């Protein structure tokens, strides 16, 4: 599932995902509220959530907090995908339990490569994501 308010960004990301993850279907929502509603109501739980931060009203970090606060939804891997490099956003995201924080690359090729790696890492794991993600957390160079 992709949570992204910028329709152009959504289009680019979906384009890249279609190329790299073959049969997987991608659901796109453009607000935090819609994302939470989908996770709550969908028959099949998303296997990965790519979450933008700068969403209108309910922002991405708030969506992350609510997902991770819910024991049923906590195992769903969530990767923050944003153009914000604000250190406070990075540390806040990890505190809230994100499974990854990826800054949107400006180069299209890089965008394709990064998204491909991300999806293949998370979708090829058969086991549910661990609940404690500290082991996966990169060194706090962003601090």
């Amino acid at each position: 599932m992709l949570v992204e308010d910028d329709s152009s960004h959504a289009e680019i990301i979906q384009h890249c995902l279609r190329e790299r993850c073959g049969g997987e279907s991608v659901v796109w929502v453009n607000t935090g509220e819609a994302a939470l509603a989908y996770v709550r109501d969908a028959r099949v739980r998303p296997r990965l959530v790519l979450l933008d931060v700068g969403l209108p009203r309910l922002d991405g970090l708030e969506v992350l907090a609510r997902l991770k606060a819910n024991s049923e939804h906590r195992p769903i891997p969530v990767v923050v995908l944003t153009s914000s490099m604000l250190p406070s956003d990075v540390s806040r995201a990890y505190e809230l339990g994100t499974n990854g924080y990826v800054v949107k690359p400006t180069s299209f090729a890089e965008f394709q490569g990064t998204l491909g790696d991300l999806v293949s890492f998370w979708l090829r794991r058969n086991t549910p994501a661990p609940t404690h993600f500290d082991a996966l957390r990169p060194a706090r160079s962003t601090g």
Partner: protein
Amino acid sequence: MPSSDSTHCDIYPDMTRSSHLSTNALRRRAEQLLNDSSRPQRTGTEQDVRRVLHELDVHDVELALQNEELQRSRNALEEAHDRYQSLFELAPVPYLTLEADSTVVEANAAARELMARTAGLVGATLATFVDESSVDAFWRHIAKACDQWGARHVRELSFLSAHGHGFPVRLATVCTPPSGGHPQRLRMAITDLTALRETQALYWSVFDSTGACILEFSPDFRVLRANAAACRLLCRAERELRQMAFIELAHPDDVAAFHGALLSARGRAAEHTSLELRLVTSAGDAAWVHASVSWLFDARGEPMRGVVVLQDVTEAKRAQAELQAIVDTAADAVITVDGRRIITSFNPAAVEMFGYAAAEVIGRDVCSLMPAETAQAFDAAVEEFRRSGAPPLSGGHEVVAERRDGSVFPVHVSVADLQVAGTRKFTGIVRDLTERRRADEVREALLRDLANKNAELTRFVYTVSHDLKSPLITMKGFAGMLRQDLRDENVERALHDVGRIEASADHMSSLLDSLLALSRVGRTVELAENVSLREIVENVCEQLHAWKTETGAEIIIADDLPSVRGDRVRLGEVFQNLLENALKFTRMREAPLIEVGVRRDGARGTVVFVRDNGIGVEPRHFERVFSLFSQLDPDEPGTGVGLALVQRIIETHGGEVWVESSGADGGACFCFTVA
């Protein structure tokens, strides 16, 4: 009584003692005198014989009575004689009786002691005891005395001691006329002047060699003598000084005080008066001296001469004056306190700092300069000092002090203890920290402000980079896809990609324009003008007239909108943005209502507001709405700069801006203060 018979004989060599003659001898002598006389032979009757015999008996009894009377007189005379002899013998003054040739006839014990002769002085010639240098003077003195019976003659000359040394004596001699069968005699009192001369010599030695300046002056205040130190101090020769009235030496301003001290000392025997005064040297310089005045009086209590001892205190005075000048001009309060905490000095800075006149606090407890809690701490420090000897508050402490009007203020106090003339005193140097504290607070506020600004700048940079990067990502992304679509020769997709790229470039361009507008605000605000906010709002409403008509909104403008000092154009932008927002978010209402008004808020002062009945803002977004490029509804047109611009303009006018709303659908009220 005489100590021995020989002495007795020396003293009474020619004394006649009729009582020693026997009655028989007297009878014999009488008969002999009768026989020798040519008295006629007496004859008479028996009756005559009886009468004569009776007469003889009566005479016999009378003679016996007379004899008794004589015996009593003799006893009284002997007693008086003994008393005189005692007085003479024991008198402390050496006393001699001499013949005119200086043969000693009588000498008392003091005389024998002076001449170192326990015996043999009587009969000796006094001239042999006179020092050779004085022999002529001695004989002249004797001759002079013999010339004038009864007159007292005094002469100082030199006698020889038993060891052959000369020693000074004063002779006081009276000559008595011949009597009782002996010629004229000299009565002489001798005073040994040795001790007196030694004392005098000692005095002169001290007088000449002491470092203290000594001047002697007459009862009419003329200089009699001046020692070497005094001559040096006054830069005058003693000869010159001796011609001067003592008062002439005093500085004109000090003459009266000096004269008073001289008179005062003259009225009191055995006491001296001290004062400090300036004397004038021959060079015309003033020398500060400490003068101690005393007088010598004669036996009748009349002043003979005065003595002034002067101590040069010019240097001490100069040092004291310098120190005083430093203390008087010090920026810090300087307060001295004695061992009982009583204030003994209070400099002008202290007067300024505490609001007390010096005379008001000198003599009072120093604790009256501090509030109760500081006084308690001070007491504890004083106790500690008594115990350990470390002066209270040494090394500097920050405490609270109290002014005369009861207001308190922070001070830094450092205390040093010092010994002044054997008395322990404490000097406190007190610095008022009010200004420093105020400066500290200002500095801390500035630092806080700077930190806030830095944080804001950091956020701004991230926000700007994020928001400018976003269209860049879009353009690069679609450029990449365009390349693929061109390779696939998919013209429709390619055109779509180009459209996206163009839209994104336009968006970026408008973001940059907004950013530029925002950055201009701080640089171009002109606060010099006094502008009517009502006038500005009316102008803005005119520009928005078409939009207003389209939405059917009603805009109410309060009559009492104030005039403020500010930038007309920028304040116009504030209302433009707020009213546009209000129109935008009330358009779905049936009867959109917008109010521009003013209210008084106790803490904030005058608050101007733009209130609408639109969709409102949830409290959690109250801050976010003012963030740069922040849009709560991405479907609404705009770049998210409007409210950030409003905030920037209001802040550059010294005010603050905020939003009040009860949440979704509750309407919003944007408020700002004006300076």
